[in-house]
Protein backbone atom coordinates (compact mmCIF):
# COMPACT_ATOMS: atom_id res chain seq x y z
CA UNK A 1 0.00 0.00 0.00
CA UNK A 2 1.15 3.53 -0.67
CA UNK A 3 2.44 5.52 2.26
CA UNK A 4 0.02 8.16 3.41
CA UNK A 5 1.24 11.71 4.00
CA UNK A 6 -0.78 14.46 5.67
CA UNK A 7 0.11 18.01 4.63
CA UNK A 8 -0.97 20.87 6.93
CA UNK A 9 -0.41 24.15 5.08
CA UNK A 10 -2.60 27.24 4.71
CA UNK A 11 -1.12 28.72 1.54
CA UNK A 12 -3.09 27.09 -1.30
CA UNK A 13 -0.33 27.28 -3.90
CA UNK A 14 2.33 25.84 -1.59
CA UNK A 15 -0.12 23.11 -0.65
CA UNK A 16 -0.75 22.33 -4.30
CA UNK A 17 2.97 22.24 -5.03
CA UNK A 18 3.69 19.80 -2.22
CA UNK A 19 0.69 17.66 -3.07
CA UNK A 20 1.67 17.33 -6.72
CA UNK A 21 5.30 16.64 -5.91
CA UNK A 22 4.43 13.91 -3.42
CA UNK A 23 1.84 12.35 -5.70
CA UNK A 24 4.49 12.16 -8.41
CA UNK A 25 6.56 10.17 -5.96
CA UNK A 26 3.69 7.75 -5.52
CA UNK A 27 2.47 8.81 -2.10
CA UNK A 28 -1.13 9.13 -1.06
CA UNK A 29 -1.58 12.77 -0.02
CA UNK A 30 -4.12 14.28 2.36
CA UNK A 31 -4.27 18.05 2.73
CA UNK A 32 -5.77 20.42 5.30
CA UNK A 33 -5.50 24.23 5.51
CA UNK A 34 -5.25 24.74 9.28
CA UNK A 35 -3.98 23.27 12.52
CA UNK A 36 -7.30 22.22 14.00
CA UNK A 37 -8.29 20.16 10.98
CA UNK A 38 -4.75 18.88 10.84
CA UNK A 39 -4.99 17.46 14.37
CA UNK A 40 -8.35 15.91 13.59
CA UNK A 41 -7.09 14.33 10.36
CA UNK A 42 -3.95 13.06 12.02
CA UNK A 43 -6.01 11.27 14.66
CA UNK A 44 -8.58 9.82 12.29
CA UNK A 45 -6.29 8.88 9.40
CA UNK A 46 -3.09 8.01 11.26
CA UNK A 47 -0.85 8.93 8.30
CA UNK A 48 2.70 7.62 7.91
CA UNK A 49 4.13 11.14 7.98
CA UNK A 50 3.00 14.72 8.58
CA UNK A 51 4.30 17.76 6.74
CA UNK A 52 3.54 20.74 8.92
CA UNK A 53 3.75 24.44 8.11
CA UNK A 54 4.73 26.67 11.05
CA UNK A 55 2.74 29.81 10.24
CA UNK A 56 -0.85 28.64 10.39
CA UNK A 57 -3.96 30.63 11.28
CA UNK A 58 -5.42 29.77 14.68
CA UNK A 59 -3.16 27.22 16.33
CA UNK A 60 0.26 27.38 14.75
CA UNK A 61 2.53 24.56 13.64
CA UNK A 62 4.55 24.49 16.86
CA UNK A 63 1.38 23.96 18.87
CA UNK A 64 0.10 21.28 16.47
CA UNK A 65 3.42 19.49 16.77
CA UNK A 66 3.34 19.70 20.54
CA UNK A 67 -0.18 18.26 20.68
CA UNK A 68 0.60 15.44 18.28
CA UNK A 69 3.53 14.45 20.46
CA UNK A 70 1.37 14.59 23.58
CA UNK A 71 -1.13 12.03 22.33
CA UNK A 72 -0.14 8.37 22.39
CA UNK A 73 -1.58 7.55 18.95
CA UNK A 74 0.49 10.19 17.24
CA UNK A 75 3.46 10.45 19.60
CA UNK A 76 5.77 8.56 17.23
CA UNK A 77 4.43 10.02 14.01
CA UNK A 78 7.27 11.38 11.84
CA UNK A 79 6.83 15.14 11.51
CA UNK A 80 8.59 17.31 8.95
CA UNK A 81 8.18 21.00 9.63
CA UNK A 82 8.31 23.49 6.79
CA UNK A 83 8.54 27.21 7.24
CA UNK A 84 9.40 30.49 5.65
CA UNK A 85 11.03 31.38 8.95
CA UNK A 86 14.70 30.88 8.37
CA UNK A 87 16.05 31.99 11.72
CA UNK A 88 17.88 29.40 13.78
CA UNK A 89 15.64 30.03 16.77
CA UNK A 90 12.55 28.96 14.83
CA UNK A 91 14.19 25.75 13.75
CA UNK A 92 15.29 25.09 17.31
CA UNK A 93 11.74 25.70 18.56
CA UNK A 94 10.38 23.30 15.96
CA UNK A 95 12.78 20.56 16.91
CA UNK A 96 12.17 21.18 20.59
CA UNK A 97 8.44 20.80 20.02
CA UNK A 98 9.19 17.35 18.70
CA UNK A 99 9.54 17.73 14.93
CA UNK A 100 11.86 15.16 13.37
CA UNK A 101 13.19 17.59 10.79
CA UNK A 102 12.77 21.19 9.69
CA UNK A 103 12.95 22.52 6.14
CA UNK A 104 12.88 26.18 5.21
CA UNK A 105 11.11 27.59 2.15
CA UNK A 106 12.15 27.66 -0.61
CA UNK A 107 13.30 24.09 -0.50
CA UNK A 108 15.20 22.12 -3.08
CA UNK A 109 12.69 19.57 -4.38
CA UNK A 110 15.02 16.54 -4.61
CA UNK A 111 16.20 17.26 -1.08
CA UNK A 112 12.65 17.46 0.25
CA UNK A 113 11.73 14.22 -1.49
CA UNK A 114 14.85 12.48 -0.19
CA UNK A 115 14.21 13.66 3.36
CA UNK A 116 10.65 12.37 3.27
CA UNK A 117 11.76 9.02 1.87
CA UNK A 118 14.41 8.70 4.58
CA UNK A 119 11.94 9.59 7.32
CA UNK A 120 9.44 7.03 6.01
CA UNK A 121 12.17 4.37 5.90
CA UNK A 122 12.63 4.91 9.57
CA UNK A 123 16.08 6.44 9.16
CA UNK A 124 14.83 9.74 10.46
CA UNK A 125 12.92 8.14 13.27
CA UNK A 126 15.85 5.94 14.26
CA UNK A 127 17.75 9.05 15.26
CA UNK A 128 15.37 9.60 18.10
CA UNK A 129 16.19 8.10 21.45
CA UNK A 130 14.23 5.08 22.72
CA UNK A 131 12.43 4.73 19.43
CA UNK A 132 14.64 2.52 17.28
CA UNK A 133 13.30 1.01 14.09
CA UNK A 134 9.57 1.26 14.47
CA UNK A 135 8.43 -0.42 11.28
CA UNK A 136 7.87 -4.12 11.68
CA UNK A 137 5.04 -4.58 9.25
CA UNK A 138 7.12 -5.11 6.12
Amino acid at each position, binding site marked *: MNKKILVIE*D*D*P*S*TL*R*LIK*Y*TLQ*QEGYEVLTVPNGLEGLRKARSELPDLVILDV*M*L*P*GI*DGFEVCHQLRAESQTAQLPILMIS*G*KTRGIDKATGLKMGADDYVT*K*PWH*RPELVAKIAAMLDGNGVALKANCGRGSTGE
Partner: protein
Amino acid sequence: MDEKENILIIDDDESTCRSLTLIFNKKGYEVETAGTGRDAIDKAQGRFFNVALVDIKLPDMEGTALLPPLKEMHPEMAVIMITAYASVENAVRALTEGASAYITKPLNIDEVLAAVRGALDKQRLVEEKRRAEEALRELDRMKSEFVSNVSHELRSPLHAIRGFTKLLLEGKVPQPEIQREFLSVIDKQSQRLGVLIDGLFDLSRLESGRFQIQKQRLSIRDVIHKAVESFYSLASDKGIVISEDIPATLPEIEADGERISQVMVNLLSNAIKFSNGGRSVIVKGGAKDGELVVQVTDRGIGITKEAMPHLFERFYRTEDSMARGGTGLGLYISRQIIEAHGGRIWAESKVGKGTTVSFALPLNEVGSVSHE
Protein backbone atom coordinates in the same frame (compact mmCIF):
# COMPACT_ATOMS: atom_id res chain seq x y z
CA MET B 1 2.81 68.69 33.21
CA ASP B 2 -0.53 67.11 33.96
CA GLU B 3 0.12 66.26 37.56
CA LYS B 4 1.18 68.68 40.28
CA GLU B 5 4.90 68.66 40.82
CA ASN B 6 6.03 67.39 44.20
CA ILE B 7 8.74 68.82 46.38
CA LEU B 8 10.21 67.15 49.44
CA ILE B 9 11.84 69.54 51.91
CA ILE B 10 14.31 67.84 54.21
CA ASP B 11 15.34 70.20 56.97
CA ASP B 12 15.16 70.00 60.75
CA ASP B 13 14.53 73.74 61.02
CA GLU B 14 10.76 73.93 61.27
CA SER B 15 10.46 77.60 60.40
CA THR B 16 12.41 77.09 57.14
CA CYS B 17 10.11 74.17 56.32
CA ARG B 18 7.01 76.20 57.05
CA SER B 19 7.94 79.24 55.04
CA LEU B 20 9.17 77.20 52.05
CA THR B 21 5.98 75.15 52.13
CA LEU B 22 3.89 78.31 52.00
CA ILE B 23 5.82 79.72 49.08
CA PHE B 24 5.79 76.47 47.09
CA ASN B 25 2.09 75.90 47.70
CA LYS B 26 1.39 79.37 46.38
CA LYS B 27 3.28 78.45 43.21
CA GLY B 28 1.13 75.37 42.81
CA TYR B 29 3.64 72.75 43.93
CA GLU B 30 2.75 70.00 46.34
CA VAL B 31 5.00 69.87 49.37
CA GLU B 32 6.00 67.26 51.92
CA THR B 33 8.49 67.86 54.71
CA ALA B 34 10.88 65.63 56.61
CA GLY B 35 12.87 66.57 59.70
CA THR B 36 15.49 63.83 59.53
CA GLY B 37 17.32 61.79 56.92
CA ARG B 38 15.54 58.62 58.06
CA ASP B 39 12.17 60.33 57.76
CA ALA B 40 13.07 61.56 54.28
CA ILE B 41 13.97 58.06 53.10
CA ASP B 42 10.69 56.68 54.45
CA LYS B 43 8.71 59.36 52.67
CA ALA B 44 10.57 58.99 49.37
CA GLN B 45 10.07 55.24 49.48
CA GLY B 46 6.33 55.62 49.17
CA ARG B 47 6.13 58.14 46.36
CA PHE B 48 8.00 60.06 43.75
CA PHE B 49 9.13 63.62 44.34
CA ASN B 50 10.28 65.75 41.45
CA VAL B 51 12.60 67.73 43.66
CA ALA B 52 14.17 67.20 47.07
CA LEU B 53 15.57 70.19 48.93
CA VAL B 54 18.11 68.79 51.36
CA ASP B 55 19.69 70.66 54.22
CA ILE B 56 23.32 69.70 54.29
CA LYS B 57 23.25 69.35 58.07
CA LEU B 58 20.60 66.98 59.36
CA PRO B 59 20.29 65.74 62.95
CA ASP B 60 20.90 62.09 62.08
CA MET B 61 23.22 62.31 59.07
CA GLU B 62 25.02 64.51 56.58
CA GLY B 63 22.62 65.78 53.92
CA THR B 64 24.99 64.55 51.24
CA ALA B 65 24.60 61.00 52.61
CA LEU B 66 20.99 61.12 51.39
CA LEU B 67 22.04 61.47 47.77
CA PRO B 68 22.79 57.80 47.05
CA PRO B 69 19.60 56.32 48.58
CA LEU B 70 17.35 59.00 47.03
CA LYS B 71 18.96 58.63 43.59
CA GLU B 72 18.69 54.89 43.82
CA MET B 73 14.98 55.02 44.56
CA HIS B 74 14.21 57.70 41.98
CA PRO B 75 16.99 58.28 39.43
CA GLU B 76 15.04 61.18 37.87
CA MET B 77 14.61 63.04 41.17
CA ALA B 78 16.42 66.38 41.30
CA VAL B 79 18.22 66.99 44.58
CA ILE B 80 19.06 70.55 45.60
CA MET B 81 21.36 71.04 48.58
CA ILE B 82 20.71 73.79 51.10
CA THR B 83 23.89 74.92 52.72
CA ALA B 84 25.31 77.57 54.99
CA TYR B 85 28.19 79.60 53.57
CA ALA B 86 30.53 77.66 55.83
CA SER B 87 29.85 74.36 54.14
CA VAL B 88 29.78 75.50 50.51
CA GLU B 89 32.70 73.20 49.84
CA ASN B 90 30.60 70.22 50.86
CA ALA B 91 27.78 71.42 48.69
CA VAL B 92 30.05 71.73 45.68
CA ARG B 93 31.24 68.20 46.31
CA ALA B 94 27.60 67.12 46.43
CA LEU B 95 27.25 68.40 42.85
CA THR B 96 29.79 65.85 41.70
CA GLU B 97 27.82 63.16 43.52
CA GLY B 98 24.55 63.81 41.68
CA ALA B 99 22.98 66.89 43.26
CA SER B 100 21.45 69.25 40.67
CA ALA B 101 22.27 72.52 42.43
CA TYR B 102 22.89 74.12 45.78
CA ILE B 103 21.45 77.21 47.43
CA THR B 104 22.86 79.01 50.39
CA LYS B 105 21.33 80.08 53.68
CA PRO B 106 19.98 82.56 54.47
CA LEU B 107 17.59 81.61 51.70
CA ASN B 108 16.70 84.06 48.99
CA ILE B 109 13.22 83.14 47.74
CA ASP B 110 13.87 84.03 44.11
CA GLU B 111 17.00 81.94 44.18
CA VAL B 112 15.12 78.98 45.65
CA LEU B 113 12.35 79.23 43.06
CA ALA B 114 14.82 79.60 40.22
CA ALA B 115 16.73 76.52 41.36
CA VAL B 116 13.52 74.49 41.60
CA ARG B 117 12.27 75.71 38.21
CA GLY B 118 15.62 74.93 36.63
CA ALA B 119 15.57 71.42 38.06
CA LEU B 120 12.00 70.85 36.88
CA ASP B 121 12.75 72.15 33.39
CA LYS B 122 15.68 69.82 33.08
CA GLN B 123 13.56 66.95 34.32
CA ARG B 124 10.92 67.70 31.70
CA LEU B 125 13.50 67.79 28.92
CA VAL B 126 14.99 64.52 30.06
CA GLU B 127 11.51 62.96 30.13
CA GLU B 128 10.68 64.31 26.67
CA LYS B 129 13.93 62.98 25.33
CA ARG B 130 13.27 59.61 26.89
CA ARG B 131 9.80 59.46 25.29
CA ALA B 132 11.11 60.52 21.92
CA GLU B 133 13.80 57.87 22.08
CA GLU B 134 11.26 55.26 23.06
CA ALA B 135 9.02 56.23 20.15
CA LEU B 136 11.99 56.02 17.81
CA ARG B 137 12.95 52.62 19.13
CA GLU B 138 9.39 51.41 18.66
CA LEU B 139 9.32 52.74 15.11
CA ASP B 140 12.65 51.10 14.48
CA ARG B 141 11.35 47.80 15.81
CA MET B 142 8.25 48.04 13.62
CA LYS B 143 10.36 48.90 10.60
CA SER B 144 12.64 45.93 10.99
CA GLU B 145 9.65 43.71 11.61
CA PHE B 146 8.17 45.19 8.47
CA VAL B 147 11.25 44.36 6.45
CA SER B 148 11.11 40.80 7.69
CA ASN B 149 7.38 40.59 6.88
CA VAL B 150 7.93 41.99 3.43
CA SER B 151 10.70 39.50 2.77
CA HIS B 152 8.40 36.74 3.88
CA GLU B 153 5.54 38.07 1.76
CA LEU B 154 7.81 38.36 -1.25
CA ARG B 155 9.29 34.96 -0.70
CA SER B 156 6.01 32.98 -0.55
CA PRO B 157 4.75 33.83 -4.04
CA LEU B 158 8.24 33.68 -5.45
CA HIS B 159 8.65 30.25 -3.94
CA ALA B 160 5.42 29.07 -5.55
CA ILE B 161 6.38 30.56 -8.90
CA ARG B 162 9.77 28.88 -8.85
CA GLY B 163 8.42 25.56 -7.63
CA PHE B 164 5.77 25.29 -10.33
CA THR B 165 8.06 26.63 -13.03
CA LYS B 166 10.66 23.99 -12.20
CA LEU B 167 8.08 21.22 -12.30
CA LEU B 168 6.98 22.41 -15.74
CA LEU B 169 10.49 22.92 -17.09
CA GLU B 170 11.66 19.54 -15.92
CA GLY B 171 8.79 17.89 -17.73
CA LYS B 172 7.22 16.57 -14.54
CA VAL B 173 3.78 17.74 -15.63
CA PRO B 174 2.71 15.82 -18.72
CA GLN B 175 -1.03 16.51 -18.53
CA PRO B 176 -1.99 19.69 -20.41
CA GLU B 177 -4.83 20.58 -18.04
CA ILE B 178 -2.48 20.44 -15.04
CA GLN B 179 0.12 22.46 -16.97
CA ARG B 180 -2.58 25.05 -17.49
CA GLU B 181 -3.56 24.98 -13.82
CA PHE B 182 0.05 25.51 -12.74
CA LEU B 183 0.55 28.32 -15.24
CA SER B 184 -2.47 30.07 -13.82
CA VAL B 185 -1.05 29.69 -10.29
CA ILE B 186 2.18 31.25 -11.54
CA ASP B 187 0.15 34.05 -13.11
CA LYS B 188 -1.79 34.70 -9.90
CA GLN B 189 1.32 34.66 -7.74
CA SER B 190 3.08 37.11 -10.05
CA GLN B 191 0.09 39.40 -9.67
CA ARG B 192 0.39 39.07 -5.90
CA LEU B 193 4.04 40.09 -6.14
CA GLY B 194 3.03 43.05 -8.29
CA VAL B 195 0.46 44.23 -5.74
CA LEU B 196 3.02 43.97 -2.97
CA ILE B 197 5.62 45.93 -4.89
CA ASP B 198 3.03 48.61 -5.76
CA GLY B 199 2.30 48.87 -2.05
CA LEU B 200 5.97 49.44 -1.31
CA PHE B 201 6.10 52.19 -3.92
CA ASP B 202 3.00 53.79 -2.42
CA LEU B 203 4.61 53.69 0.99
CA SER B 204 7.72 55.40 -0.28
CA ARG B 205 5.61 58.06 -2.04
CA LEU B 206 3.57 58.63 1.11
CA GLU B 207 6.67 58.92 3.26
CA SER B 208 8.22 61.48 0.96
CA GLY B 209 4.98 63.41 0.41
CA ARG B 210 4.82 62.61 -3.29
CA PHE B 211 1.54 60.72 -3.07
CA GLN B 212 -1.07 62.18 -5.42
CA ILE B 213 -4.52 61.35 -6.63
CA GLN B 214 -6.04 62.19 -10.00
CA LYS B 215 -9.75 62.72 -9.83
CA GLN B 216 -12.22 62.27 -12.61
CA ARG B 217 -15.94 61.72 -12.80
CA LEU B 218 -16.76 58.06 -12.47
CA SER B 219 -19.31 55.52 -11.43
CA ILE B 220 -18.27 54.05 -8.08
CA ARG B 221 -20.53 51.11 -8.82
CA ASP B 222 -18.36 50.08 -11.78
CA VAL B 223 -15.16 50.50 -9.80
CA ILE B 224 -16.49 48.36 -6.96
CA HIS B 225 -17.89 45.74 -9.29
CA LYS B 226 -14.59 45.32 -11.12
CA ALA B 227 -12.73 44.97 -7.84
CA VAL B 228 -15.21 42.39 -6.58
CA GLU B 229 -14.96 40.48 -9.83
CA SER B 230 -11.20 40.18 -9.47
CA PHE B 231 -11.78 38.25 -6.23
CA TYR B 232 -14.28 35.72 -7.53
CA SER B 233 -11.81 32.92 -8.01
CA LEU B 234 -9.91 33.47 -4.75
CA ALA B 235 -13.20 33.63 -2.86
CA SER B 236 -14.58 30.50 -4.43
CA ASP B 237 -11.33 28.67 -3.66
CA LYS B 238 -12.08 29.41 -0.03
CA GLY B 239 -15.79 28.68 -0.35
CA ILE B 240 -16.69 32.32 0.24
CA VAL B 241 -19.50 34.11 -1.58
CA ILE B 242 -19.15 37.85 -2.21
CA SER B 243 -22.46 39.63 -2.53
CA GLU B 244 -22.84 43.14 -3.88
CA ASP B 245 -25.59 45.50 -2.88
CA ILE B 246 -24.99 48.74 -4.71
CA PRO B 247 -27.92 50.66 -6.14
CA ALA B 248 -27.69 51.60 -9.81
CA THR B 249 -29.00 55.02 -8.87
CA LEU B 250 -25.83 55.95 -7.02
CA PRO B 251 -24.61 59.33 -8.31
CA GLU B 252 -21.26 59.64 -10.04
CA ILE B 253 -18.42 61.09 -8.01
CA GLU B 254 -15.13 62.82 -8.57
CA ALA B 255 -12.47 60.35 -7.57
CA ASP B 256 -9.31 58.57 -8.57
CA GLY B 257 -10.73 55.31 -9.89
CA GLU B 258 -7.51 53.36 -9.69
CA ARG B 259 -6.87 54.42 -6.11
CA ILE B 260 -10.43 53.69 -4.99
CA SER B 261 -10.14 50.32 -6.66
CA GLN B 262 -6.94 49.76 -4.71
CA VAL B 263 -8.81 50.49 -1.47
CA MET B 264 -11.52 48.02 -2.47
CA VAL B 265 -8.89 45.40 -3.26
CA ASN B 266 -7.31 45.90 0.16
CA LEU B 267 -10.62 45.67 1.99
CA LEU B 268 -11.81 42.64 0.04
CA SER B 269 -8.52 40.85 0.41
CA ASN B 270 -8.65 41.38 4.20
CA ALA B 271 -12.28 40.30 4.35
CA ILE B 272 -11.45 37.08 2.53
CA LYS B 273 -8.20 36.49 4.36
CA PHE B 274 -9.89 36.70 7.76
CA SER B 275 -13.05 34.80 6.80
CA ASN B 276 -13.27 31.13 7.24
CA GLY B 277 -14.66 28.94 4.51
CA GLY B 278 -18.32 28.89 3.59
CA ARG B 279 -19.05 32.39 4.77
CA SER B 280 -20.11 35.44 2.90
CA VAL B 281 -18.53 38.82 2.32
CA ILE B 282 -21.00 41.63 1.71
CA VAL B 283 -20.22 44.81 -0.18
CA LYS B 284 -22.75 47.58 0.29
CA GLY B 285 -22.92 51.06 -1.14
CA GLY B 286 -25.23 54.00 -0.65
CA ALA B 287 -25.52 57.77 -0.56
CA LYS B 288 -26.33 59.49 2.69
CA ASP B 289 -26.04 63.07 3.98
CA GLY B 290 -23.97 64.26 1.05
CA GLU B 291 -21.61 61.34 1.34
CA LEU B 292 -21.13 58.15 -0.55
CA VAL B 293 -20.61 55.30 1.89
CA VAL B 294 -19.16 51.92 0.98
CA GLN B 295 -19.01 49.02 3.43
CA VAL B 296 -17.22 45.70 3.25
CA THR B 297 -18.50 43.22 5.83
CA ASP B 298 -17.13 39.82 6.62
CA ARG B 299 -18.24 37.09 9.02
CA GLY B 300 -14.65 36.36 9.87
CA ILE B 301 -12.63 36.10 13.05
CA GLY B 302 -13.08 39.75 14.05
CA ILE B 303 -10.63 42.17 15.60
CA THR B 304 -9.84 42.54 19.29
CA LYS B 305 -10.57 45.79 21.16
CA GLU B 306 -6.86 46.25 21.79
CA ALA B 307 -6.09 46.11 18.08
CA MET B 308 -8.86 48.46 16.92
CA PRO B 309 -7.14 51.81 17.58
CA HIS B 310 -4.06 50.73 15.61
CA LEU B 311 -5.72 49.23 12.54
CA PHE B 312 -4.92 52.07 10.20
CA GLU B 313 -1.38 52.67 11.42
CA ARG B 314 1.44 51.83 9.10
CA PHE B 315 3.14 48.48 9.65
CA TYR B 316 0.52 47.52 12.22
CA ARG B 317 -0.56 43.89 12.09
CA THR B 318 -2.95 42.10 14.41
CA GLU B 319 -1.91 38.86 16.11
CA ASP B 320 -3.90 36.91 13.57
CA SER B 321 -2.45 38.64 10.56
CA MET B 322 0.97 37.50 11.71
CA ALA B 323 -0.11 33.96 10.94
CA ARG B 324 -2.21 34.83 7.91
CA GLY B 325 0.40 36.97 6.26
CA GLY B 326 0.41 40.63 5.37
CA THR B 327 2.73 43.57 5.55
CA GLY B 328 0.73 45.99 7.65
CA LEU B 329 0.41 48.39 4.75
CA GLY B 330 -3.03 47.73 3.24
CA LEU B 331 -5.23 49.66 5.64
CA TYR B 332 -2.64 52.38 6.15
CA ILE B 333 -2.46 53.07 2.41
CA SER B 334 -6.25 52.80 2.14
CA ARG B 335 -6.66 55.46 4.79
CA GLN B 336 -4.21 57.76 3.02
CA ILE B 337 -6.09 57.33 -0.25
CA ILE B 338 -9.51 57.99 1.29
CA GLU B 339 -8.23 61.00 3.22
CA ALA B 340 -6.61 62.39 0.09
CA HIS B 341 -10.15 62.39 -1.34
CA GLY B 342 -11.42 64.34 1.67
CA GLY B 343 -13.16 61.24 2.97
CA ARG B 344 -12.85 59.05 6.04
CA ILE B 345 -12.46 55.36 6.76
CA TRP B 346 -13.30 53.37 9.87
CA ALA B 347 -13.89 49.88 11.17
CA GLU B 348 -16.32 48.11 13.46
CA SER B 349 -15.72 44.60 14.66
CA LYS B 350 -16.68 41.87 17.09
CA VAL B 351 -14.36 39.01 17.86
CA GLY B 352 -15.78 35.80 16.44
CA LYS B 353 -18.57 37.64 14.60
CA GLY B 354 -16.84 39.61 11.89
CA THR B 355 -15.70 43.00 10.77
CA THR B 356 -17.10 45.87 8.75
CA VAL B 357 -14.74 48.39 7.23
CA SER B 358 -16.48 51.46 5.80
CA PHE B 359 -15.35 54.49 3.92
CA ALA B 360 -17.19 57.67 3.04
CA LEU B 361 -16.37 60.02 0.19
CA PRO B 362 -17.85 63.49 -0.24
CA LEU B 363 -20.51 63.62 -2.94
CA ASN B 364 -20.08 66.67 -5.11
CA GLU B 365 -23.41 66.35 -6.83
CA VAL B 366 -24.44 68.03 -10.02
CA GLY B 367 -24.95 71.68 -9.24
CA SER B 368 -21.47 72.07 -7.88
CA VAL B 369 -19.93 73.35 -11.06
CA SER B 370 -16.85 71.53 -12.23
CA HIS B 371 -14.01 73.96 -12.70
CA GLU B 372 -12.43 73.69 -16.10
